[in-house]
C-alpha cells in the first residue's frame, strides 16, 4: 500500500501576502504561523507526507522535530477542512 498524498480541499486556497501565508476557506481566513505556509505550499496533490518532510529537511537540515511538526500541522489542517488526503490510485491503467 502506498502512502497518501496531500491536497488542499476543493474549497480551500492558499494566498501569499507581504504579511505571510493565509489559508482561505469559504467565509474564513486563517493566518499561518511558523512553517505552516511553507508546508502548505508543498501540499499539491502530488506529495506524500514523506515527500514534504524530505523537501523541508533539505531546506532546514539543522531543525529538530520537523517530522512531528509537519504531521501535527497536517492533522490540524485536515480537522479544519483545509487539507484532504488523496489515496493513491494503485491499480494504474497506464502501460
Amino acid at each position, binding site marked *: 500500500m502506498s502512502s497518501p498524498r496531500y491536497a488542499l480541499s476543493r*474549497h480551500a486556497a492558499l494566498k501569499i*501576502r507581504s*504579511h505571510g501565508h*493565509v489559508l482561505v476557506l*469559504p*467565509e474564513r*481566513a486563517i*493566518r499561518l504561523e511558523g512553517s505552516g505556509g511553507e508546508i502548505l505550499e508543498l501540499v499539491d496533490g502530488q506529495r506524500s507526507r514523506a515527500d514534504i518532510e524530505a523537501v523541508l529537511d533539505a531546506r532546514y537540515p539543522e531543525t529538530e522535530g520537523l517530522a512531528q511538526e509537519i504531521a501535527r500541522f497536517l492533522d490540524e489542517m485536515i480537522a479544519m477542512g483545509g487539507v484532504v488526503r488523496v489515496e493513491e490510485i494503485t491499480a494504474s491503467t497506464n502501460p
Partner: protein
Amino acid sequence: MNETTPLNLIAELTYRCPLQCPYCSNPLAFRERREALSAEDWGRVFEEAAALGVVHVGLTGGEPSARADLPEILERAVAADLYPHLVTAGLPLKPDGLSQLADLGLRSVQVSIQDATAEGSDRIAGTRSFEAKLALCERTKELDLALTLNCVLHRENLDGIDEIIDLAERLRADRLELANTQYHGWALLNRAALMPTAEQLAEASTKVKAAQARLAGGGPNMLFVLPDYFSDRPKPCMGGWGRVAMVVDPIGRVLPCHEAGEIDGLEFWDVRTHSVAEAWNEAPGMQAYRGTDWMPEPCRSCPEREVDFGGCRCQAFRLLGDAARTDPACTRSPDHEIIVAARDQRDPGFVPRR
C-alpha cells in the same frame, strides 16, 4: 503583519435589493444615495486591498446581482488574487448567471432565506422569491461551489428552526448560519416586532444542539449564536474596529463595518479621493475606536477588553447617543437596563423595509 492588517473585504456593490426584509441592514436613508463606484473603481479597490493583505472578498449589497456589471466586478476580484464569495438573496441572479460567475472564478455562495417555507419566507421578504432561492442553491451545489445558507432569526421564524435545518440538509448546504437579528437600521425600527422571547431562544438552542448531535460531522456546519440582547457580554463586533475586516460601501467609503458611516461626527474617506491604504489606516473615523486606548470604564480595566473589543460602537451610538460608551449589551455597562427592558417590548407586526 500587525494588528490592523485586514484579511476580509466586504464589498457592498449596491443598496438596491428586490426584497423588503424588516431587518434590512441598509441604512434608513439609502434611497437618497446613489452607488458611486464603477467596475473599474472596484478593480482598483481589489488590487489595493490585496496589496494591503486582504485575501477574501464578499461581494454583497443590498443585492449584488442587481448590478448588471457583476460578472466584470467578479473578474476583477479574481484578477486581484482575492477569494471571491457571493452573498445573494437568490435573485435577480438566475442559475445560468451563477454558472457564468463560476466560470469566471467564483468560489463560494451564501444564499439567504427568510424562513423554511415559501409562504413564510416570501411573506417576510415581501416578495415572491423562495423558489428562486432554492434553484440558486441547487445550482451552487451542481457547480461544486461551497454553499452557505443564511437565515436571519426573530420571533416569527425561530420556532421553525428544525425545518430550516432540514432544508439546509436537503439542499446539501456546507454551512448554515442561523443568524439572530442584530438590531441596527431597519431591524432597530422593527425591534419590538422581531424580538424573540428567552424561552424561544432556549428552545431553538436546544434544537440546534440536538441536530448537531444527530448529524455528527455530516450535514451542514451550523452556526447559532445567542443574540447579544440575551447574553451577558457583547459580541466582538467585526473582530474589532478596523482590525481584520474592511467594508467599502456603495458610495465608496472605507468603513470598519457597514453601519459605522451612520455614526455622527466620524470622518471616513472615499476610495475615489484616497488610496485604500490611506482610507483604512489614517481616516479619523477608522482610528477613532481602534485598539483599547479609546475605551471608557468599565471596558478600560476589563480583563475581557481584547476578547470583545468593547462590543459594538454602532449599538452604543444608536441606543445611548454616544459611540464611545460601553456597549449596553454588556451586563457591566451602567446602561444595561435599556437592553433588559427591550427584551419585553412587543409589537404585533413589523414595517417592511421601504
